[in-house]
């Protein structure tokens, strides 16, 4: 069996506003558009991935929050409706997706062998979190690839950013090893925004772009700094600065997804491609791609 591989890793933020703005048939609400910079960024990402062959999407979302270890969905078919508890007016999405339970268990087992607390989620009534759904939909709206859904262990809440990173670095290494041993080609998604200070009011309509901007100048500076590090392949520096970033930018990377991704990509020194940046209710969002498939060529 050929070795499995990661064909690309992406920073793929999950604001439900993006799905809302595109009015896919699965989502009930309707809009007049909005957040085009980001939606067109996702369009560029999809175009970039169009000719890449892969079997599975592996996604880590901060909106499946677990405190007792890291969890993996272990149910092959997930069909239900996802309603965002924070923005239910924007996101009521009927989903019907397939889980690659075999790969999920392989990553689970590998992480467990490295001493991590892990658990398979095998309850058929479980609802997939909206972060996972938004990121996967924006990257692959055809929904024709199975996914591996990984929870966000909130070790930062219990300990520190440093402990979170140690765990996510290990989870990333375990993910890469399990993928390699699986023989599958995988696309990895870190489903998180960058700076994460929300506005506490909503415009009417929500897609009124005349009101959309970054929450503060400090948030903008942090976002640009992180993006620039990604663009220059300074992954290790990014990991090193993550504690300050999480604290000062209230960054959603505190959920571990970005650290996990960089670790799975072996802390790449190759530059990432910026497909788009924009703000959503004040939070900073970047769509980035590390095109691993091209690095060996």
């Amino acid at each position: 069996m050929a070795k499995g591989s990661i064909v690309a890793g992406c920073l793929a933020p999950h604001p439900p506003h993006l799905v809302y703005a595109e009015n896919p048939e699965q989502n009930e609400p309707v809009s007049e558009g909005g957040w085009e910079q980001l939606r067109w960024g996702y369009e560029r990402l999809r175009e970039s991935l169009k000719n890449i062959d892969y079997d599975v999407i592996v996604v880590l979302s901060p909106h499946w929050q677990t405190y007792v270890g890291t969890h993996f969905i272990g149910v092959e078919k997930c069909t239900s409706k996802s309603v965002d508890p924070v923005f239910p007016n924007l996101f009521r999405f009927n989903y019907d997706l397939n889980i690659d339970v075999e790969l999920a268990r392989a990553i689970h087992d590998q992480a467990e062998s490295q001493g991590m607390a892990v658990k398979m989620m095998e309850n058929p009534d479980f609802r997939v979190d909206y972060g996972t759904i938004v990121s996967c939909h924006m990257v692959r709206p055809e929904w024709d690839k199975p996914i591996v859904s990984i929870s966000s262990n909130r070790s930062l809440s219990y300990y520190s950013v440093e402990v979170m990173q140690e765990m996510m670095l290990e989870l990333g290494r375990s993910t890469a090893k399990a993928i390699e041993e699986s023989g599958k080609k995988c696309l990895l998604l870190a489903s998180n925004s960058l700076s994460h200070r929300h506005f506490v009011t909503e415009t009417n309509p929500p897609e009124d772009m005349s009101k959309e901007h970054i929450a503060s100048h400090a948030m903008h500076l942090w976002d640009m700094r992180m993006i620039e590090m990604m663009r220059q392949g300074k992954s290790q520096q990014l990991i090193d600065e993550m504690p300050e970033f999480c604290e000062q930018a209230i960054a959603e990377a505190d959920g571990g997804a970005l650290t996990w991704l960089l670790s799975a990509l072996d802390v790449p020194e190759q530059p990432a491609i910026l497909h788009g940046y924009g703000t959503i209710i004040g939070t900073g969002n970047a769509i980035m791609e590390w095109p691993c498939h091209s690095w060996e060529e």
Partner: protein
Amino acid sequence: MSGEVIKSLIVPAHPHPVLCPEKNEGWQRIRDAYDEARRQIEESDADLIIIYSTLWPSVIGHQIQADPNPKWVMVDADFHDLGSIHYSLRIDSDFSHAWNKANLARGLESRTVAYEGFPVDVGSVVALELLNPNNRIPAVICSTNVYSNRAETTVLAKACQDVIKAQGKKVVAVSVMSLSNRMFTEPIEPHEDRIHSLKDDEWNQKILEFLSEGRLEDIGQLSRTIHDQIRVKKVVAFKPMWWLSAMNGNRNDLTGKVLAYEPIHGAGAAVVVLDPESNGTGDKEYDEDDVDFYGGDRNVLDSGEDDSSPSTNSGPKLYDPVEGKNTVNTNKAPKPVGAYPHARREGDLLYLSGVGPRQPGDNSIPGGPIKDSNGNPLDYDIKAQTKAVVNNIARILEEAGSSLDKVIDVTSFLVDMDRDFSGYNEVWAETLGKVGPTRTTLAIRALPTPIAVEMKVIAKV
């Protein structure tokens, strides 16, 4: 029609008491306590349950569930292996919309939600499943805003009170929350469960001691400290005590009872019942701005041996009530300021000495004294004082084997008729006014202690 909070509850959010109480004796005791709380609600005349859930975070202000019948299947993010909870809830959507309007009127960001498939949070599902299993009483569920501070959370409760009064609801207010919320970060066997650390346990015990003494506002004012000491920094701070205290008028003299305290996967889970009946104590030593029932100087550093200490600013020397034939005295009423009993029985009638709002024990004055020790006027709350008077009357009557509903005549004394009659009259209407005794209200120049109202009562035994 008079709406009010008739009972308050603090209950845990974890699904274990619903899905697997039999696996751990402590989880079973939490379940039993939940069942006892349910029985108390069923025996009351409650017609609405209001849930403030820390497990439903919101960003755009507060969100209030307004779907008349939200239903789905709830699976816990962590404890999915314990099973699923199928829920079908009965929501008082009229109240939800009214609360939302009241929030907006008080300057809050707020909205209702009513969407098929909305994921009602695990805490609300667990609480309603156990407290109201057959939807006998409609419910309302409100989110916890991740950014709200104490003031905002207090105003949220005051807006809720506006609607409770306007609609005449008898409300059970429920905060769904853990005490210490640090769980074990790895799976454990049920028999291995314990409070995560000694420090968490000690703080939990202290919180429960306060609550069992009815000191809810003190816990509210300790919330930031509690959050720092024993709360993992998840999405929301230790806010529910702010909300629950404000729902109870920021009082410290509730009647509290801890029905159970146990660990659930390391976190502190407790079922606590707080009833609005005064337990006879006054405010304690903590204070923050915007406290409705500020009691003046709390005498924190005093030894407390001399109740007539000037620092209490509660007036002249106090006496033990005179004992004699047919006298009725109780240590649940404030000490007299002269040589007389609390009451005297003649035949089947009780004659009470003039009763003011001073509190037994610490002699504090709910609503604050009307002047300081130098005679400078102070702002005070006539409604709080009047409520305290009625509570003191009730305690004396109870000691004599009587009760408020046997009061037949009242003479009231106000030191400032123009300022206070309206507020006094409002409380009267909510209390003795419902009984219907004859009443005479007089304006007088002063009373012996720095209080604004006193009542002279005749009642049947």
